[in-house]
Protein backbone atom coordinates (compact mmCIF):
# COMPACT_ATOMS: atom_id res chain seq x y z
CA UNK A 1 0.00 0.00 0.00
CA UNK A 2 1.34 3.33 -0.96
CA UNK A 3 0.22 6.38 0.88
CA UNK A 4 -0.16 9.33 -1.47
CA UNK A 5 -0.68 12.06 1.04
CA UNK A 6 -1.90 12.89 4.46
CA UNK A 7 -4.47 15.62 3.97
CA UNK A 8 -4.92 16.61 7.51
CA UNK A 9 -2.77 15.91 10.49
CA UNK A 10 -3.80 17.18 13.83
CA UNK A 11 -1.92 14.66 15.97
CA UNK A 12 -0.23 17.41 17.91
CA UNK A 13 -3.29 19.54 18.01
CA UNK A 14 -6.15 19.37 20.34
CA UNK A 15 -9.75 19.98 19.55
CA UNK A 16 -11.88 20.44 22.58
CA UNK A 17 -15.56 19.78 22.59
CA UNK A 18 -17.73 20.47 25.56
CA UNK A 19 -21.07 18.87 25.74
CA UNK A 20 -23.59 20.69 27.84
CA UNK A 21 -25.87 18.24 29.46
CA UNK A 22 -29.21 18.95 30.92
CA UNK A 23 -31.43 17.19 33.34
CA UNK A 24 -30.95 13.78 31.73
CA UNK A 25 -28.26 13.10 34.32
CA UNK A 26 -30.18 13.08 37.55
CA UNK A 27 -28.42 13.38 40.85
CA UNK A 28 -25.42 15.35 39.66
CA UNK A 29 -24.41 18.96 40.14
CA UNK A 30 -25.15 20.03 36.58
CA UNK A 31 -27.67 22.78 36.19
CA UNK A 32 -30.80 21.96 34.22
CA UNK A 33 -30.07 22.71 30.60
CA UNK A 34 -31.69 20.66 27.95
CA UNK A 35 -28.97 20.92 25.38
CA UNK A 36 -25.48 20.12 24.17
CA UNK A 37 -22.78 22.69 23.68
CA UNK A 38 -19.79 21.88 21.54
CA UNK A 39 -16.54 23.69 21.39
CA UNK A 40 -13.39 22.82 19.55
CA UNK A 41 -9.98 24.38 19.99
CA UNK A 42 -7.24 23.31 17.66
CA UNK A 43 -3.73 24.09 18.73
CA UNK A 44 -3.04 27.75 18.32
CA UNK A 45 -5.59 28.25 15.61
CA UNK A 46 -8.75 29.55 17.18
CA UNK A 47 -11.12 29.57 14.23
CA UNK A 48 -10.31 26.36 12.44
CA UNK A 49 -12.96 25.43 9.89
CA UNK A 50 -12.68 21.76 10.76
CA UNK A 51 -14.47 22.27 14.03
CA UNK A 52 -17.63 22.55 11.96
CA UNK A 53 -17.35 18.87 11.07
CA UNK A 54 -18.30 17.49 14.47
CA UNK A 55 -20.38 20.49 15.53
CA UNK A 56 -22.60 20.18 12.48
CA UNK A 57 -23.17 16.49 13.01
CA UNK A 58 -24.00 16.89 16.70
CA UNK A 59 -26.45 19.65 15.87
CA UNK A 60 -28.02 17.49 13.20
CA UNK A 61 -28.60 14.62 15.60
CA UNK A 62 -30.73 16.64 17.98
CA UNK A 63 -31.96 20.05 16.91
CA UNK A 64 -33.49 20.65 20.33
CA UNK A 65 -30.12 20.72 22.01
CA UNK A 66 -28.05 23.88 22.17
CA UNK A 67 -24.70 23.51 20.43
CA UNK A 68 -22.07 26.13 21.18
CA UNK A 69 -19.08 26.74 18.95
CA UNK A 70 -15.54 26.42 20.15
CA UNK A 71 -15.06 30.17 20.30
CA UNK A 72 -18.20 30.63 22.39
CA UNK A 73 -17.00 28.06 24.89
CA UNK A 74 -13.50 29.50 25.08
CA UNK A 75 -14.92 32.99 25.51
CA UNK A 76 -17.06 31.77 28.42
CA UNK A 77 -14.04 30.38 30.23
CA UNK A 78 -11.43 32.89 29.09
CA UNK A 79 -8.47 32.48 29.44
CA UNK A 80 -8.45 28.89 30.67
CA UNK A 81 -9.13 27.18 27.33
CA UNK A 82 -6.83 29.32 25.22
CA UNK A 83 -4.34 27.09 23.37
CA UNK A 84 -1.51 27.76 25.80
CA UNK A 85 -3.56 27.09 28.92
CA UNK A 86 -6.14 24.43 27.98
CA UNK A 87 -5.89 21.46 30.36
CA UNK A 88 -5.26 18.09 28.74
CA UNK A 89 -4.47 15.67 31.55
CA UNK A 90 -6.49 14.38 34.49
CA UNK A 91 -4.23 16.33 36.79
CA UNK A 92 -4.60 19.57 34.82
CA UNK A 93 -8.38 19.24 34.59
CA UNK A 94 -8.61 18.63 38.33
CA UNK A 95 -6.49 21.71 39.00
CA UNK A 96 -8.59 23.75 36.56
CA UNK A 97 -11.85 22.75 38.27
CA UNK A 98 -10.39 23.68 41.65
CA UNK A 99 -9.74 27.29 40.58
CA UNK A 100 -11.94 29.96 42.12
CA UNK A 101 -15.08 30.71 40.18
CA UNK A 102 -14.69 27.89 37.67
CA UNK A 103 -17.22 25.44 39.12
CA UNK A 104 -19.85 28.16 39.42
CA UNK A 105 -19.27 29.27 35.85
CA UNK A 106 -19.41 25.72 34.52
CA UNK A 107 -22.55 24.95 36.49
CA UNK A 108 -24.22 28.06 35.15
CA UNK A 109 -23.42 26.84 31.62
CA UNK A 110 -24.62 23.32 32.37
CA UNK A 111 -21.44 21.74 31.14
CA UNK A 112 -20.58 18.21 32.07
CA UNK A 113 -18.38 16.88 29.28
CA UNK A 114 -15.34 18.29 27.54
CA UNK A 115 -14.29 16.29 24.51
CA UNK A 116 -10.75 16.69 23.20
CA UNK A 117 -10.30 15.52 19.64
CA UNK A 118 -6.72 14.35 19.68
CA UNK A 119 -6.53 13.19 16.09
CA UNK A 120 -8.33 13.88 12.82
CA UNK A 121 -6.43 12.36 9.91
CA UNK A 122 -7.47 11.71 6.33
CA UNK A 123 -5.19 9.55 4.21
CA UNK A 124 -5.31 8.54 0.56
CA UNK A 125 -3.98 5.12 -0.31
CA UNK A 126 -4.30 2.09 -2.63
CA UNK A 127 -4.45 3.87 -5.97
CA UNK A 128 -5.70 1.62 -8.78
CA UNK A 129 -5.92 2.20 -12.50
CA UNK A 130 -3.81 3.92 -15.14
CA UNK A 131 -3.15 7.59 -15.71
CA UNK A 132 -0.96 9.38 -18.20
CA UNK A 133 -0.09 13.02 -18.77
CA UNK A 134 2.25 14.46 -21.38
CA UNK A 135 2.87 15.54 -24.96
CA UNK A 136 2.84 13.35 -28.05
CA UNK A 137 3.02 14.87 -31.51
CA UNK A 138 -0.32 16.63 -31.99
CA UNK A 139 -1.78 15.70 -28.63
CA UNK A 140 -1.22 16.84 -25.10
CA UNK A 141 -3.11 16.35 -21.88
CA UNK A 142 -4.01 13.66 -19.38
CA UNK A 143 -5.79 10.40 -20.10
CA UNK A 144 -6.93 7.50 -17.94
CA UNK A 145 -8.66 6.88 -14.69
CA UNK A 146 -7.40 6.10 -11.24
CA UNK A 147 -9.34 5.33 -8.06
CA UNK A 148 -7.97 6.20 -4.65
CA UNK A 149 -9.18 4.95 -1.29
CA UNK A 150 -9.65 7.53 1.44
CA UNK A 151 -9.69 6.81 5.17
CA UNK A 152 -10.43 9.23 8.00
CA UNK A 153 -9.73 8.49 11.62
CA UNK A 154 -11.03 10.70 14.39
CA UNK A 155 -9.96 10.13 18.00
CA UNK A 156 -11.39 11.94 21.00
CA UNK A 157 -11.10 12.09 24.76
CA UNK A 158 -14.41 12.54 26.54
CA UNK A 159 -13.66 14.36 29.80
CA UNK A 160 -16.36 13.92 32.41
CA UNK A 161 -16.15 17.03 34.59
CA UNK A 162 -18.17 15.30 37.31
CA UNK A 163 -15.73 12.40 37.45
CA UNK A 164 -12.52 13.37 35.68
CA UNK A 165 -10.72 10.10 36.44
CA UNK A 166 -13.48 8.17 34.64
CA UNK A 167 -12.94 10.07 31.39
CA UNK A 168 -12.78 7.91 28.24
CA UNK A 169 -10.87 7.80 24.97
CA UNK A 170 -12.68 6.75 21.80
CA UNK A 171 -12.31 6.80 18.02
CA UNK A 172 -14.23 6.44 14.76
CA UNK A 173 -12.90 5.35 11.36
CA UNK A 174 -14.52 5.78 7.97
CA UNK A 175 -13.39 4.88 4.44
CA UNK A 176 -14.47 5.78 0.91
CA UNK A 177 -13.22 5.93 -2.67
CA UNK A 178 -12.30 8.88 -4.91
CA UNK A 179 -11.76 8.84 -8.66
CA UNK A 180 -9.49 10.96 -10.87
CA UNK A 181 -10.49 10.93 -14.54
CA UNK A 182 -8.11 12.23 -17.19
CA UNK A 183 -9.61 13.53 -20.43
CA UNK A 184 -7.33 16.33 -21.62
CA UNK A 185 -7.51 17.79 -18.13
CA UNK A 186 -7.24 15.81 -14.88
CA UNK A 187 -10.69 15.86 -13.23
CA UNK A 188 -10.76 14.78 -9.60
CA UNK A 189 -14.20 13.43 -8.66
CA UNK A 190 -14.64 13.44 -4.92
CA UNK A 191 -17.05 10.64 -4.27
CA UNK A 192 -15.98 9.75 -0.76
CA UNK A 193 -16.53 12.03 2.20
CA UNK A 194 -14.81 9.91 4.79
CA UNK A 195 -14.20 12.90 7.06
CA UNK A 196 -17.89 13.79 7.18
CA UNK A 197 -18.79 10.15 7.74
CA UNK A 198 -16.23 9.76 10.55
CA UNK A 199 -17.59 12.91 12.22
CA UNK A 200 -21.11 11.55 11.85
CA UNK A 201 -20.12 8.29 13.49
CA UNK A 202 -18.29 10.09 16.29
CA UNK A 203 -21.25 12.42 16.88
CA UNK A 204 -23.55 9.39 17.05
CA UNK A 205 -21.26 7.68 19.57
CA UNK A 206 -21.09 10.81 21.73
CA UNK A 207 -24.85 11.34 21.62
CA UNK A 208 -25.52 7.74 22.58
CA UNK A 209 -23.06 8.06 25.45
CA UNK A 210 -24.45 11.27 26.90
CA UNK A 211 -27.95 9.83 26.69
CA UNK A 212 -26.85 7.00 28.96
CA UNK A 213 -25.54 4.40 26.50
CA UNK A 214 -22.12 2.82 26.16
CA UNK A 215 -19.25 4.61 24.44
CA UNK A 216 -18.02 2.39 21.60
CA UNK A 217 -14.32 1.59 21.09
CA UNK A 218 -13.62 3.29 24.41
CA UNK A 219 -10.70 2.86 26.76
CA UNK A 220 -9.92 4.49 30.12
CA UNK A 221 -8.10 7.82 30.13
CA UNK A 222 -5.44 6.23 32.37
CA UNK A 223 -4.39 3.93 29.51
CA UNK A 224 -4.13 6.84 27.07
CA UNK A 225 -2.07 8.88 29.52
CA UNK A 226 0.21 5.88 30.11
CA UNK A 227 0.70 5.53 26.32
CA UNK A 228 1.45 9.23 26.01
CA UNK A 229 3.96 9.04 28.83
CA UNK A 230 5.63 6.09 27.12
CA UNK A 231 5.80 8.10 23.88
CA UNK A 232 7.29 11.06 25.74
CA UNK A 233 9.92 8.84 27.31
CA UNK A 234 10.67 7.35 23.89
CA UNK A 235 11.30 10.84 22.55
CA UNK A 236 13.51 11.69 25.49
CA UNK A 237 15.41 8.45 24.99
CA UNK A 238 15.78 9.21 21.28
CA UNK A 239 17.41 12.51 22.15
CA UNK A 240 19.70 10.80 24.62
CA UNK A 241 20.79 7.90 22.42
CA UNK A 242 20.81 9.70 19.08
CA UNK A 243 24.29 9.52 17.65
CA UNK A 244 24.97 11.23 14.33
CA UNK A 245 27.93 8.90 13.79
CA UNK A 246 25.58 5.94 13.66
CA UNK A 247 22.34 7.34 12.29
CA UNK A 248 23.55 9.28 9.37
CA UNK A 249 23.34 10.30 5.80
CA UNK A 250 25.74 13.03 6.57
CA UNK A 251 28.14 15.08 4.57
CA UNK A 252 31.66 14.81 5.92
CA UNK A 253 33.96 16.61 3.56
CA UNK A 254 33.22 15.00 0.22
CA UNK A 255 32.11 11.74 1.77
CA UNK A 256 28.45 10.81 2.00
CA UNK A 257 27.45 8.01 4.27
CA UNK A 258 24.09 6.51 3.44
CA UNK A 259 21.89 4.83 5.92
CA UNK A 260 19.62 1.97 4.92
CA UNK A 261 18.06 1.02 8.23
CA UNK A 262 14.47 2.19 8.53
CA UNK A 263 14.65 1.91 12.33
CA UNK A 264 17.59 4.29 12.36
CA UNK A 265 15.69 6.74 10.19
CA UNK A 266 12.74 6.53 12.51
CA UNK A 267 15.04 7.30 15.41
CA UNK A 268 16.43 10.26 13.49
CA UNK A 269 12.94 11.58 12.76
CA UNK A 270 11.81 11.17 16.36
CA UNK A 271 14.91 12.95 17.61
CA UNK A 272 14.43 15.79 15.11
CA UNK A 273 10.74 16.15 16.00
CA UNK A 274 11.65 16.18 19.66
CA UNK A 275 13.90 19.16 19.06
CA UNK A 276 17.34 17.57 18.79
CA UNK A 277 19.44 20.16 17.01
CA UNK A 278 21.86 17.81 15.26
CA UNK A 279 19.06 15.53 14.09
CA UNK A 280 17.24 18.55 12.68
CA UNK A 281 20.41 19.66 10.92
CA UNK A 282 20.78 16.23 9.42
CA UNK A 283 17.21 16.15 8.11
CA UNK A 284 17.67 19.65 6.75
CA UNK A 285 20.71 18.37 4.87
CA UNK A 286 18.43 16.31 2.62
CA UNK A 287 16.58 19.43 1.56
CA UNK A 288 19.70 21.21 0.34
CA UNK A 289 19.56 22.11 -3.32
CA UNK A 290 22.95 23.82 -3.55
CA UNK A 291 24.84 20.53 -3.54
CA UNK A 292 24.47 17.24 -5.35
CA UNK A 293 23.61 14.42 -3.01
CA UNK A 294 24.46 11.07 -4.59
CA UNK A 295 22.66 8.96 -2.02
CA UNK A 296 19.11 7.70 -2.11
CA UNK A 297 16.76 10.14 -0.39
CA UNK A 298 15.55 9.02 3.01
CA UNK A 299 12.14 7.57 3.60
CA UNK A 300 9.75 8.94 6.15
CA UNK A 301 6.64 7.54 7.69
CA UNK A 302 3.31 9.32 7.57
CA UNK A 303 0.87 9.47 10.47
CA UNK A 304 -0.36 5.92 10.11
CA UNK A 305 3.03 4.35 9.59
CA UNK A 306 3.11 4.14 5.79
CA UNK A 307 6.41 4.80 4.11
CA UNK A 308 6.46 7.87 1.92
CA UNK A 309 9.26 9.13 -0.27
Amino acid at each position, binding site marked *: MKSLSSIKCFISRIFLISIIMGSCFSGNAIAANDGIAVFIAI*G*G*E*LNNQDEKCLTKELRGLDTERTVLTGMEF*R*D*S*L*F*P*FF*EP*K*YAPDTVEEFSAFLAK*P*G*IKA*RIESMGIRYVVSVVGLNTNLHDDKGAFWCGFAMDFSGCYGMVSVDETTTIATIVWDLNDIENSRVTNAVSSGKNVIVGFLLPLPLKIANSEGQACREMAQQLTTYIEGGELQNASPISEWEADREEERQKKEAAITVYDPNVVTAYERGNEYISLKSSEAWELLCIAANAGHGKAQEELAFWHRTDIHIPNEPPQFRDDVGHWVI
Partner: protein
Amino acid sequence: MGRYLLLMLPLILLAAGCAVPVKTEMGDVVLPAPVLEKLPVTVGVLYTDEFKTAKHTQKVSVIEYIADLDLSLGLANISLFDQLTTSMFSNVVYIDPNSPEELSKQDVDAILEPSLVSIHYGAVINGIQWSFSLSLTYNVKLYLPDGDEILTFSIQSNPPPVLKVRTIFSFNDQARELFDSATREIAAQFYAEFSTLPEISNWLNTLEKEGGTRGGLSQ
Protein backbone atom coordinates in the same frame (compact mmCIF):
# COMPACT_ATOMS: atom_id res chain seq x y z
CA MET B 1 -6.70 25.23 -5.73
CA GLY B 2 -5.92 25.40 -9.45
CA ARG B 3 -8.91 27.66 -10.03
CA TYR B 4 -7.63 30.09 -7.41
CA LEU B 5 -4.24 30.05 -9.06
CA LEU B 6 -5.76 30.87 -12.45
CA LEU B 7 -7.77 33.71 -10.94
CA MET B 8 -4.75 35.07 -9.13
CA LEU B 9 -2.30 34.81 -12.00
CA PRO B 10 -3.30 38.07 -13.77
CA LEU B 11 -3.20 39.88 -10.44
CA ILE B 12 0.22 38.48 -9.69
CA LEU B 13 1.53 39.58 -13.08
CA LEU B 14 -0.06 43.03 -12.87
CA ALA B 15 1.12 43.81 -9.41
CA ALA B 16 4.50 42.11 -9.51
CA GLY B 17 7.04 44.11 -7.60
CA CYS B 18 4.52 46.73 -6.49
CA ALA B 19 4.42 48.19 -3.01
CA VAL B 20 0.92 47.90 -1.59
CA PRO B 21 0.11 50.49 1.09
CA VAL B 22 -1.52 49.13 4.23
CA LYS B 23 -2.48 52.21 6.22
CA THR B 24 -4.90 51.47 9.00
CA GLU B 25 -5.81 52.26 12.57
CA MET B 26 -6.10 49.35 14.96
CA GLY B 27 -9.23 50.28 16.86
CA ASP B 28 -10.97 48.74 19.84
CA VAL B 29 -9.62 45.40 20.97
CA VAL B 30 -12.48 42.94 21.52
CA LEU B 31 -11.82 40.52 24.36
CA PRO B 32 -14.06 38.16 26.29
CA ALA B 33 -14.70 38.94 29.98
CA PRO B 34 -12.30 36.75 31.93
CA VAL B 35 -13.18 34.26 34.65
CA LEU B 36 -11.02 35.94 37.25
CA GLU B 37 -11.02 37.05 40.86
CA LYS B 38 -9.94 40.67 40.90
CA LEU B 39 -7.00 41.65 43.06
CA PRO B 40 -8.41 43.82 45.87
CA VAL B 41 -6.21 46.82 45.25
CA THR B 42 -6.43 50.28 43.75
CA VAL B 43 -4.07 50.74 40.85
CA GLY B 44 -3.26 53.94 39.03
CA VAL B 45 -2.84 53.37 35.31
CA LEU B 46 -0.42 55.63 33.48
CA TYR B 47 -0.44 55.71 29.69
CA THR B 48 2.49 57.66 28.33
CA ASP B 49 2.00 59.87 25.27
CA GLU B 50 4.24 57.50 23.34
CA PHE B 51 1.96 54.59 24.24
CA LYS B 52 -1.20 56.52 23.36
CA THR B 53 0.06 57.57 19.94
CA ALA B 54 2.12 54.51 18.98
CA LYS B 55 2.62 53.87 15.27
CA HIS B 56 4.28 51.09 13.37
CA THR B 57 5.76 51.37 9.91
CA GLN B 58 7.41 48.46 8.14
CA LYS B 59 7.86 47.01 4.68
CA VAL B 60 7.13 43.30 4.39
CA SER B 61 7.86 41.31 1.22
CA VAL B 62 5.04 38.94 0.36
CA ILE B 63 5.45 36.81 -2.77
CA GLU B 64 5.83 39.40 -5.56
CA TYR B 65 4.65 42.37 -3.54
CA ILE B 66 5.81 44.59 -0.76
CA ALA B 67 3.27 45.38 1.94
CA ASP B 68 3.97 48.93 3.09
CA LEU B 69 2.58 48.88 6.61
CA ASP B 70 1.62 52.12 8.37
CA LEU B 71 -0.35 51.15 11.45
CA SER B 72 -1.74 53.38 14.20
CA LEU B 73 -1.76 51.45 17.45
CA GLY B 74 -2.57 54.04 20.11
CA LEU B 75 -6.31 53.36 20.39
CA ALA B 76 -5.74 49.62 20.42
CA ASN B 77 -3.10 49.95 23.14
CA ILE B 78 -5.47 51.88 25.39
CA SER B 79 -8.43 49.64 24.62
CA LEU B 80 -6.38 46.54 25.45
CA PHE B 81 -4.96 47.80 28.74
CA ASP B 82 -8.23 49.40 29.86
CA GLN B 83 -9.76 45.93 29.69
CA LEU B 84 -6.81 44.17 31.28
CA THR B 85 -6.54 46.51 34.25
CA THR B 86 -10.27 46.86 35.01
CA SER B 87 -10.61 43.06 34.91
CA MET B 88 -7.54 42.42 37.05
CA PHE B 89 -7.87 45.08 39.80
CA SER B 90 -10.90 46.00 41.88
CA ASN B 91 -10.26 49.74 41.49
CA VAL B 92 -8.52 51.55 38.67
CA VAL B 93 -7.80 55.27 38.39
CA TYR B 94 -6.09 56.97 35.48
CA ILE B 95 -3.04 59.16 35.94
CA ASP B 96 -2.13 61.97 33.59
CA PRO B 97 1.55 61.56 32.68
CA ASN B 98 1.77 65.29 31.97
CA SER B 99 0.81 66.23 35.53
CA PRO B 100 3.38 64.56 37.78
CA GLU B 101 1.90 66.30 40.81
CA GLU B 102 -1.22 64.22 40.27
CA LEU B 103 0.72 61.13 41.27
CA SER B 104 0.98 62.21 44.87
CA LYS B 105 -2.68 63.17 45.03
CA GLN B 106 -3.94 59.79 43.86
CA ASP B 107 -4.65 57.37 46.65
CA VAL B 108 -3.34 54.23 44.98
CA ASP B 109 -1.59 51.04 46.07
CA ALA B 110 0.58 50.96 42.97
CA ILE B 111 1.01 52.46 39.51
CA LEU B 112 0.88 50.35 36.39
CA GLU B 113 2.59 51.64 33.28
CA PRO B 114 2.38 49.56 30.09
CA SER B 115 4.70 50.03 27.15
CA LEU B 116 4.81 48.63 23.65
CA VAL B 117 8.24 47.05 23.38
CA SER B 118 8.15 45.69 19.84
CA ILE B 119 5.88 44.81 16.97
CA HIS B 120 7.15 43.03 13.90
CA TYR B 121 5.34 41.55 10.93
CA GLY B 122 6.87 38.89 8.72
CA ALA B 123 5.59 36.76 5.85
CA VAL B 124 5.11 33.01 5.77
CA ILE B 125 4.81 31.58 2.27
CA ASN B 126 4.11 28.04 1.13
CA GLY B 127 3.46 27.82 -2.61
CA ILE B 128 0.58 30.14 -3.40
CA GLN B 129 -0.57 30.14 0.21
CA TRP B 130 0.74 32.84 2.45
CA SER B 131 0.13 34.65 5.67
CA PHE B 132 1.62 37.42 7.74
CA SER B 133 3.34 36.40 10.94
CA LEU B 134 3.44 38.74 13.92
CA SER B 135 5.55 39.14 17.00
CA LEU B 136 4.12 41.55 19.57
CA THR B 137 5.65 42.38 22.96
CA TYR B 138 4.42 44.60 25.78
CA ASN B 139 6.03 45.37 29.11
CA VAL B 140 3.91 46.00 32.18
CA LYS B 141 5.77 47.94 34.83
CA LEU B 142 4.22 48.01 38.30
CA TYR B 143 5.67 50.36 40.91
CA LEU B 144 4.82 51.91 44.25
CA PRO B 145 3.66 55.56 44.43
CA ASP B 146 7.12 56.46 45.76
CA GLY B 147 8.71 55.09 42.60
CA ASP B 148 10.04 51.77 43.90
CA GLU B 149 9.55 49.10 41.27
CA ILE B 150 7.54 45.99 42.17
CA LEU B 151 8.14 44.20 38.88
CA THR B 152 8.28 44.52 35.13
CA PHE B 153 6.26 41.78 33.46
CA SER B 154 7.03 41.10 29.81
CA ILE B 155 4.25 39.63 27.65
CA GLN B 156 5.01 38.32 24.21
CA SER B 157 2.71 36.92 21.56
CA ASN B 158 3.47 35.00 18.37
CA PRO B 159 0.09 33.78 17.11
CA PRO B 160 0.29 30.95 14.58
CA PRO B 161 -0.20 32.26 11.02
CA VAL B 162 -3.05 30.67 9.08
CA LEU B 163 -1.79 29.78 5.61
CA LYS B 164 -4.42 30.31 2.90
CA VAL B 165 -4.63 31.28 -0.73
CA ARG B 166 -4.83 35.08 -0.47
CA THR B 167 -4.60 38.15 -2.64
CA ILE B 168 -2.92 41.51 -2.10
CA PHE B 169 -6.35 42.90 -1.25
CA SER B 170 -6.29 40.95 1.99
CA PHE B 171 -3.12 42.62 3.31
CA ASN B 172 -5.14 44.97 5.48
CA ASP B 173 -7.45 42.29 6.88
CA GLN B 174 -4.49 40.00 7.49
CA ALA B 175 -2.62 42.62 9.49
CA ARG B 176 -5.74 43.19 11.61
CA GLU B 177 -6.63 39.53 12.07
CA LEU B 178 -3.18 38.71 13.29
CA PHE B 179 -3.12 41.74 15.60
CA ASP B 180 -6.47 40.61 17.08
CA SER B 181 -5.09 37.11 17.68
CA ALA B 182 -1.97 38.55 19.25
CA THR B 183 -3.85 40.84 21.63
CA ARG B 184 -6.06 37.93 22.67
CA GLU B 185 -2.95 35.92 23.46
CA ILE B 186 -1.45 38.88 25.35
CA ALA B 187 -4.64 39.18 27.41
CA ALA B 188 -4.72 35.45 28.17
CA GLN B 189 -1.13 35.56 29.36
CA PHE B 190 -1.76 38.61 31.54
CA TYR B 191 -4.89 37.12 33.13
CA ALA B 192 -3.40 33.67 33.63
CA GLU B 193 0.04 34.61 34.91
CA PHE B 194 0.18 38.10 36.38
CA SER B 195 -1.45 37.36 39.73
CA THR B 196 0.61 34.18 40.18
CA LEU B 197 3.95 36.00 40.00
CA PRO B 198 5.90 35.83 43.30
CA GLU B 199 6.50 39.59 43.22
CA ILE B 200 2.73 40.16 43.22
CA SER B 201 2.20 37.74 46.11
CA ASN B 202 4.93 39.48 48.09
CA TRP B 203 3.47 42.90 47.34
CA LEU B 204 -0.04 41.82 48.43
CA ASN B 205 1.36 40.23 51.60
CA THR B 206 3.22 43.44 52.41
CA LEU B 207 0.07 45.51 51.90
CA GLU B 208 -1.85 43.19 54.17
CA LYS B 209 0.77 43.46 56.90
CA GLU B 210 0.73 47.21 56.61
CA GLY B 211 -2.94 47.28 57.40
CA GLY B 212 -4.82 46.81 54.20
CA THR B 213 -5.15 48.26 50.74
CA ARG B 214 -7.13 50.99 49.08
CA GLY B 215 -8.94 48.24 47.24
CA GLY B 216 -10.20 46.41 50.29
CA LEU B 217 -7.63 43.73 51.19
CA SER B 218 -7.89 42.97 54.94
CA GLN B 219 -10.24 45.83 55.52
